[in-house]
């Protein structure tokens, strides 16, 4: 059993890894721009670039080959500066915002972001043409893309692919050969993302500016105060009523309950929430209308009640089917033929065997309870995770959505495992190996 659990847990690693790769593809490769979302109506090109740098979104996607060549890049820049010196511009005279260009040490940390700014200083409009050409060559070579900081200054860069290739070729000829530094290969969006996922460091929410891990921890408890009692009450009551139905199959009680469940299932959840809040809380004054304050039981009572009411009907219907499937088995007939009392047949034999499908359909839901119930939380003001998730989706708060999806994936895998383990307890014929 232990070996089985360990093995299953190991299986989760490739599954979660696969989920992560898909998430990366969705959010980092094709997804929207979080920097722009954060800046909202103040998103100027410069501000977006700067924020992308802050968020590490200016790093290469998969591997940071550019930075791997940082050492040689640096040498190349120095060689370029030598060349510029020979062309009549002494490097020490080149200053950027008061700092001499020689301060190329910043390249060690974030080469892609630092170098263009430095080279940019060489590209002032009106500078001698050879100088501008050389600086633009250096820029294209180093960043592999159009200039970042001062668009107007980089006109030579934009002259077309052909020029760029020619520049590149020219540059290649004079570029001293240096060994790449592999230190930076993993400085890419993908590896940062994987590392953050492995350490459960989700960063900050774009919209709320709070740490996502804190948001999750803070929201989980209020969500659970509604879903845990709701879930267990619903399953317990559902199972009980399903047994009653099965026990008195086709009788008045069974038909009444089935009829009621059909009605209950045709009403949308939103109607339960709105109606429950309006009638039970507002009109009858049995519960508070909104809020989440101590004593919390008072404030979660109505949401729990609505949760139970809404999930009871489908539970009864499916549990009833599971039980009836068992009732028609041979062993039940045998037991009855042997004169075992009806109660004993139902409770000792049928219920036990019907537990397997019951477990399958319920345990898998357990981990998701912590994600809460969106509508209940929004309407009753419970600061849980359901509303957090939906707010994030609507405001394109991708880091939050990503974190939730990731956790959801883990929970799903764990839920599956828990289901399998429960089988073993419910049915001695199943042994986990």
């Amino acid at each position, binding site marked *: 059993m232990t070996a089985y659990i360990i093995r299953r847990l190991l299986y989760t690693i490739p599954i979660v890894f696969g989920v992560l790769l898909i998430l990366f593809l969705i959010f980092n490769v094709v997804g*929207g721009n979080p920097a722009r979302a954060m800046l909202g109506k103040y998103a100027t090109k410069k501000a977006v670039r700067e924020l992308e740098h802050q968020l590490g979104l200016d790093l290469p996607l998969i591997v940071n080959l550019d930075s791997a060549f940082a050492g040689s890049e640096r040498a190349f820049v120095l060689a370029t500066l030598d060349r510029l010196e020979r062309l009549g511009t002494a490097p020490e005279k080149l200053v950027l915002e008061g700092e001499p260009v020689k301060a190329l040490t910043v390249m060690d940390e974030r080469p892609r972001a630092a170098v263009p700014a430095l080279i940019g200083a060489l590209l002032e409009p009106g500078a001698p043409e050879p100088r501008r050409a050389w600086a633009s060559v250096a820029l294209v070579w180093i960043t592999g893309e159009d200039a970042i900081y001062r668009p107007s200054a980089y006109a030579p860069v934009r002259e077309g692919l052909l020029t760029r290739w020619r520049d590149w070729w020219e540059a290649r000829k004079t570029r001293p050969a240096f060994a790449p530094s592999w230190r930076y290969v993993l400085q890419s969006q993908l590896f940062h993302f994987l590392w953050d996922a492995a350490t459960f460091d989700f960063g900050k929410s774009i919209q709320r500016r709070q740490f996502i891990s804190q948001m999750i921890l803070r929201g989980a408890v209020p969500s659970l105060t509604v879903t845990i009692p709701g879930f267990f009450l619903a399953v317990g009551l559902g199972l009980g009523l399903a047994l009653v139905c099965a026990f008195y199959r086709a009788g008045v009680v069974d038909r009444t309950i089935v009829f009621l469940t059909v009605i209950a299932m045709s009403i949308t959840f939103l109607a339960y929430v709105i109606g429950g809040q309006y009638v039970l809380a507002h009109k009858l004054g049995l*519960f508070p209308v909104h809020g989440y304050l101590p004593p919390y039981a008072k404030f979660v009572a109505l949401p729990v009640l609505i949760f139970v009411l809404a999930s009871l009907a489908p539970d009864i219907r499916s549990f009833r089917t599971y039980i009836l499937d068992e009732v028609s088995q041979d062993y039940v007939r045998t037991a009855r033929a042997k004169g075992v009392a009806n109660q004993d047949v139902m409770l000792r034999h049928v219920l036990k065997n019907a537990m397997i499908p019951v477990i399958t359909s319920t345990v898998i839901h357990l981990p998701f309870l912590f994600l809460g119930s969106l509508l209940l939380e929004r309407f009753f003001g419970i600061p849980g995770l359901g509303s957090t998730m939906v707010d994030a989706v609507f405001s394109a708060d991708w880091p939050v959505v990503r974190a939730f999806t990731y956790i959801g994936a883990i929970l799903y895998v764990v839920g599956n495992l828990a289901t399998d383990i429960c089988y073993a307890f419910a049915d001695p014929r199943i042994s986990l190996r």
Partner: protein
Amino acid sequence: MRGSRSERGDAGLKFLVLLGALGAIGAGTYLALGRRLVEEGGAGGPIVRRQAFVAQVKGFDPALAGDLYSGTAAFQIYEPLYEFHYLERPFREIPLTAEAMPEISQDRLTYRIRLKKGIRFHDDSCFPGGTGRELTVHDYIYAWKRVADPRVQSELWAFFQGKIVGLDALHDRASTSGNFDYDAPVEGLQAPDPHTLVVKLTRPSVDFVYLLVMPFTAAVPREAVEHYKDDFINHGVGTGAYRLVEWVPNSRIVYEKNPDYHDVRYPETGAPGDRESGLLADAGKRVPFSDRVEITIITEDQPRWLQFERGALDIAGVPKDAHGKAIVNEQPAPYLREKGVQIEIVPELDVTYICFNMVDPVIGKNRLLRRAIAHAADLEKTREIFFNGRGLYAQSPIPPGLFGYDPNYRNPHQEYNLDKARKHLADAGYPGGEGLPEIVYDSSGTDTTSRQMAEHFQENMSKIGIKIRIEANTWPAFSEKINKRQCQAWGIAWGADYPDPENFLQLFYGPSSSPNGQNGSNYQNPEYDKLYEEIRVLPDGPDRLRKIHRMRDIIAEDNVWVYELHRVTYILKNPWIRNYKYPPFLGGAFYKYTKADMAERKKWIGE
């Protein structure tokens, strides 16, 4: 095989009875717990103000308080140098922590601001000994540097950018090096003594003085930021009238009166009608009046409305779907009036509009086509369907209440007239829409209302033969598209950041075209740009007015936008709320002026 019918019936009945009993016990327990549903404050007890926010609050960091609710939340704690006069309209700035309005040099480049003495920060564990120290101008300089710090990631940096001598250089250096040097001197931010701030601007700017009212320019003690570090956003250490005592993200904020609040008085003058409506009853008294302010975040309309009806909230906006039920003939519905509910109808400082991309080869290069569209837009219906029939038809970008708004002006190039529209369309080279390619209308949301608004536009245009294809976007995707100049036409709105027409007229300024700024239409007009640069520095007066009107005419002539509405907000007030006047934008920490008559509330609740 089966038991007899009667036997089963008996047991079933027993079971149902058992279930019923269980249910009754459960309900009883809930009932017992649910007893006191609305907490009371007696006549002699503390004065408690109860307010709802309709959207989430990020926290209290002023540098991040760009949205209305985070701004309001931060405002109660942190104080900028000035605030808007609570009652007077049009809006006028008055000193808050400053001693007087800034002394501005002749060239309008140097601002000298004196700070009141003896203002203290709230007591907090971030200070040595836990006692709040005195506020100095260094706290303002520090706060402004924080906005410029790239690591703080404040979107509000856009307001300071390019304005203060030396601050941009510090920002750019930090962007490159990753480290912001808070101790580096900034030429444009100097403190000759702890109570004098001298600000040097790079160019004269009429909006600078408005920035001194916004929450992000409020004083922040460096001790608090360094003490709470990443969690600073969840704390509040300011000089404001209220101290933060409870903060449950997603749920609620509770403030308590700052016992050491500096001497701030309730205004003695107001707008016409304020005296009659009792808004000047407390003139000259020291604020704050309320002992406690409780804010609940309620994003759904129904619970917010029910809480207002139950008296758990002092005031409420009217939800769109409840409008017909709650408002009758611009008055609260009879059932609300019986309860003493009062109404306040306030024009917002905003404009909704349909924007055209002026660099689009089809729509941007053809003024008559745009004019045809403007004449075919049935705004009356727009107002009826989407704004409950309320709102003022906009004739220009400038909303009423701002300098330069002219109530008698009618935009000659956009009244609803299908004949004119058809004629312009023909003149534009597309008689009956013939030969005109499908035009894409981008909507700013994927929700029902956004879709319906887009469909409404589509239907309007089909009447003159223009085919519209709708593309629905999420807001970030939408703004990205505008920035990349990929849209043709789209519906959007602009709300004032500060009460000056410049804030609206900048939306047509050529150098601010996408992606550099907020001119999403990418409109370019040298004459307009020149005038804009002039009105940006001119003080209000006949010269400025003339230039603003010229600008208004230029953009009307070019049909850059289809102006829709200046929206109107309906506020309902429960009878015990006093001194409440709705501020149409983030103008100051106004809760300190309001109060609740607890005796009256108690009577009302008890009924």
